[in-house]
């Protein structure tokens, strides 16, 4: 029988080591869940490829379809990684007692959140790299220059914060099955009619006024503007900031770890 030195020698790993371990664990489990990977990468990819012909199906407005679609597909990727995937994974972690168990470990709550955020960011970097490469291969020509990419990065961070906190809000208050249903339903609804892929000026005026205020519409429109002209309007940025603040506050107040 193996001898184990069980004498007490307690201590927490360093904060950096704990956050890194948590992020790696999340990524490893994500990689094992094919369906989640599919929703985060394959769906945006399919829409990008199929959508280059969408000019003849849906009228995207003036300009080449790929230039309009590419920023929207990036927005969709953020929505799937930071909202749908995160909500579903966290909902089941709560159900299986993983959050409860980690709550008794040296990993502090902010560390758990940081680990999750890091994992989401890694997924998004991969998504953006793959989707942008495919978009360029399909002839994408963003006109925003360096400033467009910088603004895009800012919008992606804001969008991740807003959708991430909303995803955690659902996961922290509903049952795991309800979270699964709601997260997927919201994803599909926003994909179809949330102003993610189709420019807001193509919607009727009434719908447009609502969509402008949704995080999906703000992220999609902000990215399209940034890549087209080098800077988004003020409204999308403000909308994302407000959703981030509201989402984070509501999540912090209501999240139940068990």
């Amino acid at each position, binding site marked *: 029988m193996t001898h184990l030195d069980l004498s007490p020698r307690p*201590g927490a790993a360093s904060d950096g080591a704990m956050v890194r371990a948590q992020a790696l664990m999340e990524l490893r489990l994500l990689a094992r869940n094919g369906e989640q990977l599919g929703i985060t990468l394959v769906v945006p990819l399919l829409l990008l490829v199929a959508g280059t012909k969408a000019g003849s199906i849906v009228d995207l407005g003036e300009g080449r379809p790929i230039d309009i679609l590419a920023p929207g597909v990036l927005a969709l990727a953020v929505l799937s990684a930071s909202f749908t995937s995160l909500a579903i994974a966290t909902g089941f972690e709560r159900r*299986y007692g993983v959050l409860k168990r980690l709550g008794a470990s040296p990993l502090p709550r902010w560390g758990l959140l940081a680990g999750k955020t890091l994992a989401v960011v890694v997924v998004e970097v991969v998504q953006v790299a793959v989707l942008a490469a495919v978009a360029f291969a399909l002839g994408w020509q963003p006109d925003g220059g360096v400033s467009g990419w910088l603004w895009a990065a800012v919008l992606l961070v804001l969008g991740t914060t807003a959708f991430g906190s909303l995803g955690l809000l659902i996961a922290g208050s509903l049952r795991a099955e309800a979270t699964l249903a709601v997260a997927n339903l919201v994803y599909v609804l926003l994909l179809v009619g949330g102003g993610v892929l189709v420019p807001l000026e193509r919607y009727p005026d009434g719908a447009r006024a609502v969509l402008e205020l949704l995080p999906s519409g703000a992220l999609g429109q902000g990215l399209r503007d940034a890549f087209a002209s080098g800077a988004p309007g003020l409204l999308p940025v403000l909308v994302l900031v407000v959703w981030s603040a509201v989402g984070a506050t509501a999540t912090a107040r209501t999240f139940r770890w068990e």
Partner: protein
Amino acid sequence: MRYGSTVAADGLDLTVERGTVTAILGPNGAGKTTTIETCEGYRSPQEGTVRVLGLDPVADARELRPRVGVMLQSGGAWSGVRPPEMLRHVASLHAHPLDPDALIERLGLDRSARTPFRRLSGGQQQRLGLAMAVVGRPELVFLDEPTAGLDPQARRATWDLVAELRDAGVTVVLTTHYMDEAEALSDVVHVVDAGRVIASGSPASLTAEGARNTVRFTASAGLDVADLMDALGHGTKVEEIEPGSYVVAGDVDPALVAGVTAWCARQGVLVQSVMVERQTLEDRFLDLTGRSLR
């Protein structure tokens, strides 16, 4: 602790000595888990105070968590995670963890190293939970029903590990509804029922308290029990419950047994059998609660 109008633990007062094994024994619904989860910092007491290693489990959680190992009653792992992966993850959150692979092997989980958590048997999930509680080399571990649903070998492996923890200077607090477990493992037992501690002490002192220990013997019928009582003295009672079958009640010690056989010898009576019946923890529990354990 209250859940709605149900009081789960009420005026429950107990202290645990460092370096000992303490068992909280009680039927289902007695308040064991509520008590232990309050010590783990999962809930705050509505009244009274809880101190663990001198610290407040909620306010001082950051300081306390690395020092305390926790085994939940169930779950606590991702459904698709493999045992070594999960244990390595928990180990990586600690500064000086045990070797996760050695612990996996020690608890017999190496044969299920590729099996996702959801496909492990209940007993294997329990053992992984135990491994997660001890991998960080804590000073104190809380084990909530560590052997519920284990087969005898796995149960023995868990008992051995608990004994080794104590020998290594780790304080262990465990809940159980198995009498033999409390009796075999613990230095101190707290019997809990309906949210209150109804008895505390070492397993030996609990069974000795108010002892109804008896000696039964069989010999020829119609012996002079009054004379035997005189011979044994100090408040011993003897009864012939059926012809040739006698019960001696009193302070059962070696002298009493010798006294019985010596008296029979003086009478020229051959004793056919002598049996000392000691009260078990289970008898004691029944006395205390009027309720049976599973």
